[in-house]
């Protein structure tokens, strides 16, 4: 009955830490992220890929990872569907951009401002979650998206309305951040920070409480979890990550317009975490990478065949959209737990037989 191994291997100290194999995986991931530009450069040098294009895509992926990690804390962990992501990104982006252009705030400070304000706005629009759940909450977040976007598009005095806010290229110490390579390092480290902190959050009491609220509100309350407070906390924390993503978008692209934050964006992010794996931090990374890289890939494909069949290229956007939709449908039907689950399966199938689950 009493398995001998356990008391030893699960001594509290190591049990709450992680096993060496995991550290190895983390190391590999870090190495890969660090080496990515070099790999890309080599491939580009060999004329295999368009280096500039894919470097841009990498930067976009990095930003998307931050946003997806944030959304997954809200929707995946605490179980509250949000279709307001685009709006929250907008708050972050405009805050950072306007703080810099109007008040001459240094850009890192503007990012902190963006994080705080977005977090506050997110919490406000999270208030309905105290009384609503599931579908009704989802619809409420759709409304928040519509309202924020309306403000952004029409509050000419503050946001330049439907026009655009142009952000000057920022300096990092002595380096002028005006090229994708420089930005890649900034964005990659920010993304890494987001992933690590979110992972930590999920293995402490706060993460557990969120999942408890998601799985079984009644029982959560019965063990002393203040359900409402944790729902709002989820909105606040999630929006903080989203705010960072938005601020990075503003600083990286140097141009902020409402079009980057439409309902489609909210949908895209929801798709990322569902395809990546709800409630899984690593899933957010896979999902973001997949959903950003896929259309880019299709676009490259389209251009490579442009000369042969010009007809296709005109239809390319429609094709991208269709693939987007199909991917969502197929995943929900065949791999509802997302790429994170897929990876687990691979791990299992590669594990030597005696220990196979």
């Amino acid at each position, binding site marked *: 009955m009493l398995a001998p191994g356990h008391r030893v291997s699960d001594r509290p100290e190591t049990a709450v830490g992680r096993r060496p194999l995991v550290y190895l995986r983390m190391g590999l991931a870090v190495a890969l992220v660090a080496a990515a530009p070099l790999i890309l450069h080599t491939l580009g040098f060999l004329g295999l890929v368009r280096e500039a294009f894919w470097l841009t895509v990498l930067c976009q992926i990095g930003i998307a990872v931050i946003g997806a990690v944030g959304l997954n804390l809200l*929707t995946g962990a605490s179980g509250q*569907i949000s*279709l307001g992501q685009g709006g929250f990104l907008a708050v972050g982006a405009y805050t950072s951009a306007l703080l810099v252009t109007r008040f001459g705030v240094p850009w890192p400070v503007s990012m902190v401002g963006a994080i705080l304000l977005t977090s506050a706005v997110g919490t406000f629009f999270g*208030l*309905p979650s105290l*009384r*609503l759940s*599931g*579908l*009704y909450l*989802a*619809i*409420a977040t*759709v*409304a*928040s998206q*519509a*309202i924020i976007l*309306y*403000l952004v*598009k*029409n*509050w*000419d*005095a*503050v946001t330049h*309305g439907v026009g655009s806010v142009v952000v000057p290229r920022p300096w990092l110490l002595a380096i002028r951040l005006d090229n994708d390579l420089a930005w890649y390092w900034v964005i990659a480290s920010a993304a890494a920070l987001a992933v690590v902190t979110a992972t930590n959050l999920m293995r402490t009491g706060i993460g557990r409480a969120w999942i408890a609220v998601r799985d079984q509100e*009644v029982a959560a309350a019965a063990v002393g979890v203040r359900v409402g407070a944790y729902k709002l906390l989820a909105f606040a924390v999630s929006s903080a990550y989203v705010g960072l993503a938005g601020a990075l978008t503003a600083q990286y692209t140097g141009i902020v317009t409402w079009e980057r934050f439409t*309902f489609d964006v909210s*949908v895209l992010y*929801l*798709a990322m975490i*569902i395809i990546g794996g*709800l409630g899984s931090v690593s899933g957010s990374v896979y999902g973001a990478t997949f959903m950003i890289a896929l259309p880019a890939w299709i676009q490259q494909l389209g251009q490579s065949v442009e000369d042969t069949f010009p007809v296709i290229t005109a*239809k390319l*956007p*429609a*094709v991208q*959209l*269709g693939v*987007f*939709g*199909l*991917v*969502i*449908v197929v995943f*929900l*039907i065949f791999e*509802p737990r997302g790429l994170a689950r897929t990876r687990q399966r691979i791990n299992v199938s590669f594990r030597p037989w005696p220990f196979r689950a």
Partner: protein
Amino acid sequence: MSTLTQLTVLGLANGAVLALVALGFVVIYKATGVVNFAQGELLMVGAYLVAAFLGVPGLHWVLALVLAALAAATLGIAIQVLVLRWLVGRGAVSVIMITIGLAACLRSAVQLIWGTVGQDMPANLPGTAVQFRGLGLPNAIVLPSTQLWAVVLAAAALVAFAVFFQCSRQGLAMRVVAEDQQVAMLMGISVRWVFALAWALAAVSALVGGLLVANISGVSIDLADFGLLVFPVVILGGLESIPGTVVGGVVVGLLSAYASGYLQGQVLGLSLGAAHDVLPFVVLVLILLVKPYGLFGQAQIKRM
């Protein structure tokens, strides 16, 4: 004064169309428990189908409309049978997301088939205006006949659906399924068939809505954006209430009509010219905060 009356009538007309589109949404939700984010796309597809069949030379317009409706119904059934059947008993996120995925597929399909350039709705309903004089009003009220058509057709469709639900066998079956699927099965009702039927009906009602909107604005991808307006309507009316859609539709219609008519200029640098886009959603949030399950919806009680 005449402007007020004018806008009121316009609002009612828009409300009728909205109610019609929302009806399809509610039917799906009642019967299958799916929140359909693709309702706007169904409307768009419907409009394109009508345009396509009306465009066929030598095809009588009645026949064309019937064929279009059939095509839409088939699409609806296909969605249920090919896709949603797989998601029975999944969480809200999955269900919402799959309808979003479907929406993307429908948009893409339309773009691939009909391209991205908008087109004219062939053989529109006559574009004359109806004038009302007198009524103690300073100057005449002019009503776009398209709007009048919208009211008439939408009302007719709504009545038709109501009759269907109340009187027909299928309608009864749908109501039973909506109440309790177990009971329905015990009564020998095929739940799968009812689900498919719900989607078919939703697609058809969306088609009628699409026809009416396209007749005002022309046929284009943008018609799908109409879909988001469904949410304020159904929240006002309650996700489950079919009469609620009429109330919700009218309220939202009037709201945005008055807004676009009267709200001009700026407040604190916020230009109100486009406020009609957002007001329905503001109301939505307020209602959800005050009356979480809509004016006509009822909360579900969990017992331990």
